């Protein structure tokens, strides 16, 4: 089942995530055993960001079911054998033989997530109204290190609509200390209190029995 939705402009595809998680596990298993994870991850990044982004046609050819595995394999050999490490090439060929080359983005995302878990890193999305100053980043990291089980990995996002304060997102949990949501809470509290006040004054003039 494929379901998708945009998240910060990015598509959530549950089917792709499942596939990605599976291949990422296998990929990390192989690279960790060889002790080359960092290097191979950099190669994978470079392949996706430097090559496939510039050559979208190549990506569609690799993902296409119309192109047979042999042809794709030959293409990979010719294009990457000189530069890519043998392990990455093998991995790409495995993906090709299973027809999963279209899931490279999802696989990279899953590899990053799983690698963070292995290295004890926790990804924290930090949203602020203005760009963060380095001293603040340092301070925040220190605070988070004490709070979290692992090493915080900060991903800063600038959202002017927050007005001020900071919003942290760790996994599915959001710690909202922004000015905009504080204002919103103050607003609802004021409305609630006023409604209660109006109602209780109205009740004083009402007959106690019935409406």
């Amino acid at each position, binding site marked *: 089942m494929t*379901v*998708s*939705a*945009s*998240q910060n402009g990015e598509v*959530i595809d*549950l089917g792709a*995530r*499942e596939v990605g998680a599976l291949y990422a596990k296998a990929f990390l298993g192989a690279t960790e055993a060889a002790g080359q994870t960092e290097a191979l991850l950099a190669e994978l990044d470079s392949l996706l960001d430097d090559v496939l982004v510039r050559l979208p046609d190549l990506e569609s050819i690799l993902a296409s079911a119309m192109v047979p595995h042999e042809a794709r394999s030959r293409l990979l050999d010719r294009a990457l054998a000189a530069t890519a490490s043998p392990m990455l090439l093998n991995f790409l060929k495995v993906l090709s033989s299973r027809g999963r080359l279209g899931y490279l983005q999802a696989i990279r995302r899953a590899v990053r997530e799983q690698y963070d878990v292995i290295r004890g890193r926790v990804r924290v999305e930090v949203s602020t109204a203005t760009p963060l100053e380095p001293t603040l980043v340092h301070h925040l990291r220190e605070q988070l290190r004490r709070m979290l089980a692992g090493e915080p990995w900060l991903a800063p996002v600038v959202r002017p609509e927050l007005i001020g304060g900071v919003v942290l*997102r760790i*996994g*599915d*949990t*959001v*710690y*909202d*200390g922004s000015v905009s*949501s*504080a204002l919103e*809470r*103050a607003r609802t*509290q*004021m409305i609630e*209190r006023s*409604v*209660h006040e109006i*109602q*209780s004054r109205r*009740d004083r003039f009402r007959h106690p029995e*019935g*409406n």
Partner: protein
Amino acid sequence: MRFKADEIASVIQKEIEQYRSTLDVREVGRVLEAGDGIARVYGLSGVMASEMVEFPNGVNGLAFNLEENSVGIIILGDFLSIREGDEVKSTGKLLSVPVGDAVIGRVVDPLGNPLDGKGPIVTTERRPVESNAPGVAERQPVREALQTGIKAIDAMTPIGRGQRELIIGDRKTGKTAIGIDAIINQKHTGVKCFYVAIGQKESTVANVIEALRKHGAMDFTTVIVAGASDPAPLQYVAAYAGTAMAEYFTYRGGHSLIVYDDLSKQAAAYRQLALLMRRPPGREAYPGDIFYCHSRLLERSAKLSDALGGGSLTSLPIVETLEGEVSAYIPTNVISITDGQIYLQPDLFFAGQRPAMNVGISVSRVGGAAQIPAMKKVAGGLRLDLAAFRELEAFAQLGTDLDAATQARLDRGYRMVELLKQNQYVPMDVIDQVLSIYAGTRGHLDKIPLVKAHEWETNFLSFMREQKSEVRRPIAETKKLDDATAEALEKAIAEFQKQFVAEAPRRETVLA
């Protein structure tokens, strides 16, 4: 009146001073898809089953399906304004509704929002919609009567406080009428009533509310409406919400009565949700837990133990059958959960017998324990007698000559059937019922022409009330019919018979 900016400013200033800034911690997810009353959400990894979640437009939802990669949410409200990618917040709370005296006399939706235009429901008390049914030690046997005011029911299938009596029948057989009459009859008894309308036309519900108002029943009744145009999640939740409102009084030692009109529509709404959530369909495409859906609802009706205050929650679930098919899935389920059923038949309805109750297959598993002793005494063999009469009647239709004894039994039967007919919205006091059934079963109507049976009954009851109150009073006070009272009653009936016969010609001239 003039507004003063200074005053307003000072009020706001005070508010701001009192406002304490706290960090808002929430768990979030994102909508993958939404529609038809459900949404699929990515994230919300720590959400609990049945936990309430909040969409950005303020609409609430319930976590219904917890899957490996996503969460299925049922949306309790407008699902059209929910967009793909919206942020969903978990609230850490279960769905609850406002309860207490503030909801009495109101018409509300299944979330407790007022629908009657009488302003907000001001109460701080809330109760979770889903709660556990009381266990064995927390209950006691049903032993007080809940009078419905309908002769046929109170005499033959008595309902006790804390009982669950199913009302089942085809469409247009008077199922709702029984529920409404039972509610109207609770006037002055202190029983709080709740009418849950599920999947009905709004016009029908408006008529019911109007009928309740006209007969003074809205003073102690709450109507919970999830109409046919409301999304399926609301129709599904309505029954539980109504029960929560009723339970509030039960657990405070009070008595409440709830009418679910009807559970077949609730089951259909639940089926819709289950299918949209891709839960595997079972018999008649209902999900596997449809039985649990109804049993956990109806098990909440109980007579509580004295330690818990001795309150009770009586429920009258209604189920609609198709062409009298009681062996369909939902009817058999609900029949097996409830403590008896009142079975209504279209042919009886069209033959003018209203309520169109088939006494042969209608039962109450609580039985005589839920009757006052006087009623138990007079109506003891009534059910069997009527069943025997139906048999004899079928036989007599063959046209053979009947001996005098058989004819007499037939005559008695016809008159009893006539006596058990009752108009809508006129529930009868239980003492009147006792007197009327006593007269019928003891053969005092045998000589009265069939067409005059009703007139005889009406006059007899007013005669007893106005002229023979010394006979009626002991029955009303002790709720018993001892031999001395029975003797006095016999004498009173004999006296009335003379009056009735003597006054007959005069009445006819007046009528002419």
